[in-house]
């Protein structure tokens, strides 16, 4: 089964149109050139589709790093569970 960080990397890779292997563990909007505002919109849409939820503005701001995205995914899974 895919771990939360693997799933987060797969979402991010999909949004950035990169190979998941090219997403470093410390990936963040500030440091990853491809992760711009438009790619972030794509990430929001993919995350919402994947979790079948509507993210809050707080989620959207938190998920500007891979670690933040993992935390948002975990929070929503708890809510669903």
């Amino acid at each position: 089964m895919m771990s939360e960080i693997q799933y987060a990397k797969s979402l991010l890779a999909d949004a950035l149109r990169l190979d998941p292997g090219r997403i470093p563990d410390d990936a963040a909007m500030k440091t990853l050139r491809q992760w711009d505002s438009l790619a972030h919109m794509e990430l929001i849409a993919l995350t919402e589709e994947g979790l079948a939820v509507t993210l809050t503005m707080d989620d959207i701001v938190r998920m500007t790093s891979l670690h933040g995205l993992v935390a948002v995914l975990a929070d929503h899974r708890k809510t669903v569970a």
Partner: protein
Amino acid sequence: MNLAGALVLVTGGASGLGLATAESLQQAEAIPIILDRDREMLDAVTTRLGCPGFAVDLTDSVAVDAVVAAVCEKHGTPLGLVNNAGILRSAPLLSLGNAENPRHSLELWNEVLAANLTSVFLVTRAVADRMARRRVRGVIVSMSSVSAKGNAGQTAYSAAKAGVEAMTRVWAKELGPLGLRFVAVAPGYVDTPSTRAAVPEDILENLRRETALRRLCKPESIAATVIFALQNDMITGTTLSVDGGLTM
């Protein structure tokens, strides 16, 4: 969008096409909120329709942000926005027979671009920001015109309306992932007092003959298209022509 009870901002809603749109929204059980720079007309219309209204200069960035904040605070985040306000001014690039003013004035260019393009940018920026932050899957409909294809004698107006159509496509791409939709509506010549005041009768008659349906548009037909664009959840990033076949 389900229009029943939905808040929909209508710019320039105190007269003409904007008023027809506000009335159609009300008939569809939506709640139009009218923004208009003419306070006197605004007061008369909002009293008659029993809907909220705010007087504002839509070319003033600070005033636009303030009025959108006031609307959201008092009524909540709108589900829809209809960018209808604008002005129609015509002038050729060169008037070689006019010795004193042979060239299209920069002042007129700036006035027309501010009223028809900058205002759409400012209001949409403010409203879309609210919609995105509140995760409202809103709809923004902007009035273009047959002039977007390039009408002789309308350099500034045509440029502004082509710009509105381009912004509609850009915003649809940028904010589609958040569920926001953007649609432009391009009317032909609409049979209103302002059209009759701006366009001589012989030219209107020629336009009527060039139109496949041999008649000018009615404001109600344009308003019905706006309602359709608000309601149909798969339309975005496009321009709906409502011109009786004038531009086909």
